[in-house]
């Protein structure tokens, strides 16, 4: 592709290809800046007007949540001369792609929703209907700052040409796109599902962007923690079996890095499970039966992780200690995140608090025992011994079966167990795992 104007556009690479056009990353040498160049496919050039498209977006002006259009230049693509829209280059990823990645934090999800709403409101103020706000038309920059990058280029999206009734319909269409986007963004957030369900209910039947904005604002402090609800079906045995097969493959292939990644993935899965309302206990009477039931559920859930933990001790020398430690720390964090309050008489809450780290400790120890990795077992016992001395727990099994807690303080038992006074443990990436000795 070459441009026919005075300014030189050096095409660096094609980055996207859609129904109506293609997008390239290019350099404007005169201005020494990287830009995005969109050309309309020649077969659609009779239907899509790049100049009109650019004009429409340009009417929005410079807005932090809408891509900035620099201008239109004539280019030749495959020997056909056509106008191309030159736009601001955005370094980020499409919202739709990001949905396959890590969950959004609460701050990130609100930033995305508010940013898109700001951008859409600006477009409507400028008399433009977007008409095609799908998940690929939003780019998330660093810190999940959103930018709307496109409008439906196949139609005249000027609201000014429409009657009042048609204009309302056109805007309602955009509102619906935004509603769907907000729903998907929150569904992919760290908020527990029942809270997202509350949000979904509120979003039903919204009529304007202002309504959606008010609902997103409401999530800051309006979400109510739910009561204990009907349990979700536990993971199936096949899940554990598949995991087991995978672990074996990694062992036979001597791929510790892969196993490490797998375990951290499973830990995150556990984290997500724990964040679900399945493990939320608030505003209800906590009876021993209910606690026992929840422990059983917990064990089923932790089952996703435990085979990996246990068999991971196949390599169980000291060098893998940090990996196990991270997994256990992560589980401890999960529990902290659940926000159980230690109150007088609520001993069962305390049981629940100390259950996951101990369960994981136990699993690691059993894995080490079965694989005759006694150095690992020794290291685990030394830590567990420290924990038991400090917590004055007389029976480990009582912790694992929902018996009486011996800790009146309600502190994070695992923090004291490993002699670390820090209450919070970041979920670290597999890359940050280091190998070190445990003595």
């Amino acid at each position, binding site marked *: 592709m070459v441009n026919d104007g005075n300014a030189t556009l050096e095409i660096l690479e094609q980055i996207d290809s859609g129904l109506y056009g293609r997008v390239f990353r290019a350099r404007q040498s005169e201005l020494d800046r990287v830009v995005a160049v969109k050309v309309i496919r020649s077969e659609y050039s009779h239907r899509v007007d790049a100049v009109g498209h650019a004009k429409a977006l340009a009417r929005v002006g410079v807005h932090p949540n809408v891509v900035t259009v620099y201008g239109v230049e004539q280019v030749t693509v495959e020997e056909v001369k056509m106008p191309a829209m030159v736009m601001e280059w955005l370094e980020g990823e499409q919202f739709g792609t990001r949905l396959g990645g890590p969950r959004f934090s609460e701050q990130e999800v609100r930033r995305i929703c508010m940013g898109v709403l700001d951008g859409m409101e600006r477009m409507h103020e400028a008399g433009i209907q977007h008409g095609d706000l799908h998940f690929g038309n939003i780019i998330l920059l660093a810190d999940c700052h959103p930018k709307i990058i496109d409008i439906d280029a196949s139609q005249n999206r000027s609201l000014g040409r429409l009657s009042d009734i048609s204009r309302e319909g056109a805007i309602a269409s955009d509102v619906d796109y935004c509603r769907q986007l907000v729903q998907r963004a929150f569904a992919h957030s760290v908020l527990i599902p029942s809270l997202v369900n509350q949000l979904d209910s509120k979003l039903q039947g919204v009529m304007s962007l202002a309504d959606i904005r008010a609902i997103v604002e409401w999530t800051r402090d309006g979400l109510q923690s739910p009561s204990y609800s009907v349990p979700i079906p536990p993971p199936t045995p096949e899940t554990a079996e598949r995991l087991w097969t995978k672990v074996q493959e990694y062992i036979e292939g001597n791929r510790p890095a892969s196993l490490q990644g797998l375990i951290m993935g499973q830990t995150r899965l556990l984290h997500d499970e724990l964040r679900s309302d399945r493990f939320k206990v608030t505003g209800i009477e906590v009876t021993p039966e209910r606690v026992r039931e929840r422990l059983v559920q917990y064990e089923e859930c932790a089952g996703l992780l435990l085979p990996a933990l246990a068999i991971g001790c196949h390599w169980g020398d000291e060098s893998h200690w940090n990996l196990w430690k991270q997994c256990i720390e992560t589980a401890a964090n999960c529990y902290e995140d659940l926000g159980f309050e230690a109150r007088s008489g609520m001993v069962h809450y305390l049981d629940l608090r100390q259950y996951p780290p101990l369960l994981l400790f136990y699993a690691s*120890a059993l894995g080490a*025992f*079965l694989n005759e990795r006694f150095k690992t077992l020794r290291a685990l*016992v030394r830590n567990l011994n420290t924990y038991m001395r400090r917590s004055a727990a*007389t029976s480990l099994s009582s912790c694992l079966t929902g018996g009486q807690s011996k800790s009146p303080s309600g502190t994070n038992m695992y923090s004291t167990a490993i002699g670390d006074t820090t209450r919070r443990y970041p979920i670290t990436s597999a890359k940050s795992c280091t190998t070190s000795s445990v003595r």
Partner: protein
Amino acid sequence: MYNVLGTVVPVRAAFEIQFDRFEYFLGLMFCAEQQNRKPEDIIAPTGTFLWRRAREPDFGEKFIAQARERGDEWPPFQAGIFDKNLPAFEYVVGLFDEYVDRERARKGVRMPRR
């Protein structure tokens, strides 16, 4: 635990034996760490073997026999546990068996006379 770790030892009966051996061994290791304490001050985890092996008071003897047979080659000794010697290990087994007896009495578990 069987539900989640059954994949490691798929047969339930075999798993139970292994699991009880594991819990017992874990208790021994805790005792070994605390053997300079008074016996009544020792804190060690117990487990379902308290009930399940109540009629097998020689549970620890099996470990001792294994250690005696393999000598220095016994993996726990090689890992530096129990001071790497049989007499120390036998002492810890005795210490833990006493502890287990007390726990059984406290929990009302019937057991045969030794």
